[in-house]
């Protein structure tokens, strides 16, 4: 799995336990339904194999559930601002599907991908929280999880703000409104617009991919029904023609299976990667929110520090006895402002690196997806051609 999606240039070779190279390999397996009724949930086995010194022991197996993965994601998002955090699969909207085999497998796959992406990211793999996630026993994990209570969650309002910024730029200028706390970087503006538009295109592609899955299923069903009807027709013909009808029915049935199978493959290997791509873009948007917040903070603190400086000068002129106090304040504010500026610049730098990596990784990911898609469709079409072709000699033979 990881071979497909590995990041080039990461420090670790994820699946080569036999070499003396440092490695960290994780797999998410064995979904099991636990609990009863409304409280029921799925637990997964997370198996870690590593030779890294920071980890206790070469192999560790822990049991984790979806909300544990969410915990990890939230902590990473908090501590690694500027990095595009690998996306998690969605919480299921519909109760009915939460425990369907299809859904469980899709989710397991997505979680496996997620953890491996974290483990192979040069910065994220250093995370202490990752180590906790991979190693801590279940009780520790549960405590950690309930403590957090989602304080690290991104507020929807923040995302909306960016969105509004992008959309309303023109109208604001026209209306003469100033937005002082916005970056003036035109390249970054372009990038923001790109990200938003990209999401729209991807969402459309994903929608059509999902429909295509459905169409394959429907065609399979229609072909099966038709084949059965033809077979019945043939039964009353008797003789060779009847046999041809019967064979027709059999081939139809067989092709129906192949269509259903292709539908399943498309769901897992074509639609899901597109969904994953959309999630990745949404993760970028979250980082964009962080950047905007950091920028604002930087501006606000810089402003505050400046004002205090001006105040200080006034006090000095006035020979006020507040001067030492305010001097200290100024120092502190200056330090905070510099810190905020630094934080902002880190995010900018990281984002640029991440963007390059993101584009390269996505080209590989989509390349694989496209290739598998084309292969699957070619195989299906060939199967169809072969199945029907096999009927031709018989049909020739029984010309009335």
């Amino acid at each position: 799995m990881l071979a497909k999606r590995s990041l080039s240039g990461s420090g670790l070779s994820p699946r080569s336990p036999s070499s003396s190279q440092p490695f960290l390999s994780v797999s998410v397996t064995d979904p099991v339904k636990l609990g009863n009724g409304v409280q029921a949930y799925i637990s997964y086995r997370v198996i870690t194999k590593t030779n890294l010194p920071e980890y206790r022991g070469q192999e560790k197996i822990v049991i984790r559930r979806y909300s544990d993965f969410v915990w990890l994601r939230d902590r990473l998002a908090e501590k690694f601002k500027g990095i595009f955090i690998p996306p998690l699969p969605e919480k299921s909207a519909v109760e009915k599907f939460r425990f369907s085999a299809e859904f469980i497998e899709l989710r397991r796959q997505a979680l496996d991908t997620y953890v491996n992406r974290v483990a192979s990211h040069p910065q994220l793999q250093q995370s202490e929280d990752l180590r906790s996630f991979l190693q801590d026993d279940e009780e520790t994990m549960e405590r950690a999880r309930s403590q957090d209570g989602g304080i690290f969650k991104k507020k929807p309002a923040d995302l909306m703000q960016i969105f509004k910024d992008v959309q309303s730029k023109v109208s604001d200028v026209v209306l003469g409104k100033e937005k002082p706390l916005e970056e003036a970087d035109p390249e970054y503006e372009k990038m923001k617009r790109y990200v938003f538009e990209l999401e729209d295109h991807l969402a459309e592609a994903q929608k059509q991919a999902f429909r295509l899955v459905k169409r394959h299923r429907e065609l399979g069903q229609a072909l099966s029904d038709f084949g059965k009807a033809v077979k019945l027709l043939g039964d009353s013909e008797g003789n060779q023609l009847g046999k041809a009808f019967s064979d027709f029915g059999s081939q139809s049935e067989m092709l129906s299976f192949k269509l259903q199978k292709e539908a399943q493959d498309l769901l897992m290997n074509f639609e899901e990667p597109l969904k994953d791509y959309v999630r990745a873009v949404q993760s970028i948007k979250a980082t964009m929110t962080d950047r905007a917040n950091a920028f604002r903070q930087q501006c606000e603190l810089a402003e505050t520090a400046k004002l205090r400086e001006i105040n200080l000068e006034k006090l000095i002129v006035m020979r006020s006895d507040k001067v030492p106090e305010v001097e200290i304040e100024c120092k502190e504010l200056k330090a905070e402002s510099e810190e905020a500026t630094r934080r902002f610049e880190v995010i900018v730098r990281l984002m640029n690196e991440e963007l390059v990596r993101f584009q390269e990784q996505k080209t590989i990911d989509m390349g694989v997806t496209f290739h598998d898609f084309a292969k699957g469709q070619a195989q299906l079409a060939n199967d169809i051609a072969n199945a029907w072709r096999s009927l031709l000699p018989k049909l020739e033979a029984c010309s009335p």
Partner: protein
Amino acid sequence: MMGYENLEVEEPTNNNNLFPPREEMENLVIDEGPNTQTFISHSDYRSVMSSLAETHHPLAGDDPLSSNSSSKSFRNSSFTEDSFLEPPAYADVVFSPFTEKPISGNGNSSQPTQHLSNSSSEFITIIVSNPQKEQEISNSLVPGGNTYVTYLITTRTNMADYGSSDFSGSAEFSVRRRFRDVVTLADRLADSYRGFLIPPRPDKNVVESQVMQKQEFVEQRRLALEKYLTKLASHPVIKKSEELRVFLQVQGKLPLPSTTDMASRMLDGAVKLPKQLFGESVSAITAQEAVQPAKGGRDLLRIFKELKQSVANDWGGSKPPVVEEDKEFMEKKEKLRDLEQQLSAASQQAEGLVKAQQDIGETMGELGLAFIKLAKFETEEAVYNSQRTRAADAKRVATAAVKASRFYREANAQTVKHLDTLHEYLGLMQAVHTAFADRSNALLTVQTLLSELSSLRSRVEKLEAASSKIFGGDKTRNKKMEELKETIRVTEEAKDCAIKEYERIKENNRNELERLDRERQNDFHNMLKGFVINQVGYAEKIANVWTKVAEETSEYAKDSI
């Protein structure tokens, strides 16, 4: 699956499958060639074929069909990469001959009977066109009156009965008819050809004159009329009928069916009937006429008697003197009932299949479109080369998807034509019911006459018994007896006629059912064959399109990372 890089036609794994059937398909094309002569409106078919051959049909160069030399005569061999245009004419050229339904819109699009059985290369072509609104010349009190639509019916034929106007022995002529005339024709044929499988006529619609104006409805009806008349003209017996000839050839308005005035019909009936059944002024009615099916109004009393008879039959009160003894016939009936059920199911599922194929084609197209837009977007906004690469990959998939979409939909258009056979035969079951009904009615007439004879005879017996007691006889009684004996004689004649008619209809039934079986086997065989060949052809095309993309993206294959 490795080895995509060299996916040219020479690749063994693919070609072993492709060549033998391709040759087979080539041969099949050639075999069918001469027979296209007998296709209806074959000239239209020919012109479509040649225009396809001339059109530029670009497709990616590694289309395996292109390397087959025998297909060159049908193909234009210049190709361009990544074009969105038509797939090669090969598909149309190879696959449509098997539909036995020419591509042109003007010709009929389907018929259950083959033309290949014409021994004397006799042909008849019927085209319905040029619908026009006309005004009813009114005796009605309403100003403006009724409007109706007439159609131009053009016939070309070399059949002897129609005379010929040129040295080739063929004639061409046109008449204008309205739908009501068609209904009349159908009714007359039903009368004259009892026991035959007469193609069902297009439905009447209880239409408002507004609906009649609607172009779509008129076009639908035009097409239906063309199909119907063509089917009539291809029925081995009906094509020679005088009723059909008159309809197709005789200029001017056709006479309306006899008066529809119910009251007068009933009066007519009441007056005529005693003559019909009691033999007075026998010359006014022949036995032939008497054994025609009882129609409303005119044959009131007779209908009543036959009804009484059929009720007696049903309740088994008196065993009918002649029963349907033909076991073979009963079995046949059962079988046909089953066939009808199966046809109905198959017809329904065929529609489901057509819809599913249509849908997948559409969705594939929309997917392609989504990826085209994505590719365009990435290309325009590209900052990094990885974006350009990705856009190029997306475009490849998009192009293939759009092509595949087109193939799905073309394949489906052909599928519709092939599977139409099912719908046609389902429609024909109606004619079978009618033919069987003709037989039952004829039998009923025989039974009624036999009962009548039986009761007449017993009346004579009674009279004889009574009058023998009186010496010299009773004048009135004797007269009555004479009358009765005369009636018996006429009724005997009628009975003989009725039995002949019944036998005739039985024979018609038998022949027609045989013909149905033969033609059905043939048509179903062609249907399956056509369907299968079509599917093979288009599946191959679609496979090629995707194989190319897989090849072009092979660097991403798992094995090579």
